[in-house]
């Protein structure tokens, strides 16, 4: 029995291995990852860790004893370089080969690289791994200013952290509003104001034309011809799925390894989960690739159970959170195609939620500092229950009073 080999030991890989065990998989499980540290949490890298509030120790996802107790062998610091599906074998960079009965790819995603002139220079920061965060932190501590290319979640979180550390921060964003594809315009506006209040210079509808370095100083020339100077340049312009192993092995991929609701790929012996996959998402009504902890864990759970022969399809409502300054931003559902929205509360720091509708159906809710409301919204969207826009906008209306279908009562919040 060669058992299960999992490539990638972050949220998806660790959860899948654990879920396979919990679903009764009794064969060996080997979890391999190219990083040298124990599996760790990534969200704090741009927040608490960079700020100096969270230590490397506190990021650890699971102790070594956890893996030992579960009979999961963890192989750190080695990468899978090739998958031979005929021989059911994975080749590692160090020359070792692992035979498998089942394979699970949880290779995640990587930072998209800049492609403007000067982008090939040494020293441009990207933030994805603990290593990246450690180098960025060391340089940021000594720097006076940072230029952030990209006003997405990572860019804005680093902007908030750097500004808390007293740095001069500039953010360059190509779109005309922040987080254009992910949050409602009300939240974009709220965040813009929040960053301004904290002294961050945000340049919307602006691109980067080239990067130059003179000694330790960077000059970023923008599309409109401005020359910005800073000690550090960080690019946060999105992620790309790590699908090379899968494509070379001939698995069906399209901006992600294609998987069904059980995490199965086009080869029934090979599964995949997390940032590296693309699945048909019923809340989006289309093929979707998600990058979030919730997705990696829930899909990892489905794939791990399927390896053990138990079905537990992945049907969770997509959700994401981000922390910037004192604002806790939480999102549930997918807002493509929204045609109507209402605001619950006042769009200020005391907290509010934006309820988004498509043809009178509640499809997504963005909240700022309203975790309770967010949790109710998860249940509502998960169960397909839509408060009327008038009810959603009325703070005196108790959203918890809306009846949920029976099956949804116990659904994951």
């Amino acid at each position, binding site marked *: 029995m060669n058992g299960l080999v999992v490539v990638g030991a972050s949220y998806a890989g660790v959860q899948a291995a654990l879920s396979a065990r919990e679903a009764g998989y009794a064969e060996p499980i080997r979890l391999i990852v190219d990083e040298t540290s124990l599996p760790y949490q990534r969200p704090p890298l741009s927040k608490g860790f960079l700020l100096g509030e969270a230590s490397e120790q506190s990021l650890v*996802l699971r102790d070594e004893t956890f893996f030992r107790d579960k009979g999961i062998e963890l192989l750190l610091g080695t990468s899978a370089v090739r998958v031979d599906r005929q021989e059911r074998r994975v080749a590692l960079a160090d020359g070792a080969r692992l035979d498998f009965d089942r394979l699970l790819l949880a290779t995640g995603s990587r930072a998209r690289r800049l492609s403007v002139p000067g982008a090939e220079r040494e020293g441009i920061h990207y933030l994805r791994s603990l290593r990246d965060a450690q180098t960025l932190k060391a340089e940021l501590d000594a720097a006076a200013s940072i230029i952030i290319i990209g006003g997405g979640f990572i860019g804005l979180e680093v902007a908030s952290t750097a500004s808390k550390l007293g740095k001069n921060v500039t953010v360059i964003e190509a779109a005309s509003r922040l987080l254009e594809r992910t949050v409602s315009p009300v939240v974009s506006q709220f965040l813009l104001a929040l960053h301004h209040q904290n002294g961050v210079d945000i340049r919307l509808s602006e691109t980067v034309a080239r990067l130059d370095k003179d000694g330790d100083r960077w000059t970023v020339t923008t599309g409109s011809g401005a020359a910005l100077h800073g000690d550090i340049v960080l690019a946060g312009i999105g992620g790309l799925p790590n699908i090379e192993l899968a494509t070379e092995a001939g698995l069906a991929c399209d901006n992600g390894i294609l998987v069904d609701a059980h995490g199965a790929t086009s080869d029934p012996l090979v599964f995949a989960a997390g940032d590296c996959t693309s699945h048909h998402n019923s809340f989006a009504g289309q093929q979707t690739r998600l990058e979030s902890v919730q997705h990696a864990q829930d899909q990892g759970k489905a794939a791990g159970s399927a390896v053990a022969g138990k079905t537990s399809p992945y049907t969770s409502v997509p959700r994401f959170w981000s922390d910037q300054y004192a604002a806790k931003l939480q999102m549930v559902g997918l807002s493509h195609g929204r045609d109507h929205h209402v605001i619950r509360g006042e769009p200020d720091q005391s907290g509010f939620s934006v309820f988004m509708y498509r043809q009178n159906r509640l499809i997504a809710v963005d909240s700022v500092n309203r975790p309770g409301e967010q949790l109710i919204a998860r249940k509502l969207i998960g169960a397909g229950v839509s408060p009327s826009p008038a009810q959603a906008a009325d703070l005196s209306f108790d959203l918890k009073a809306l009846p949920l279908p029976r099956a949804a009562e116990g659904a994951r919040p």
Partner: protein
Amino acid sequence: MPLVRFVEPNGAERTLEIVTGTSVMQTAIRHSVRGIEAGCGGCLDCATCHVYVDDSQLHAMPPASAQEDAVLAAVAAERRPTSRLGCQLFVPVGIETLIIHIPETQL
């Protein structure tokens, strides 16, 4: 180092050292204490690190913040006056062994 004693619904117990500055949830996750999920890693996003503080120690705990209180409204198991989120819970000075009861379910 302070200790935390986790009591499962069936009475099974485990006592662990809690590294200073780490939360009850972090201690549970790192030692794979059953019954604490912590889907969001402590970001007040998931309500799956719900625990009950022992009645005898409730008075010694600082109260929940407004945000923790809001998230507690969505916990899966019964919410009691002793309900807290493990990710927001640290051992207060003066307590040597914090006693934590694990709820029946988190999901």
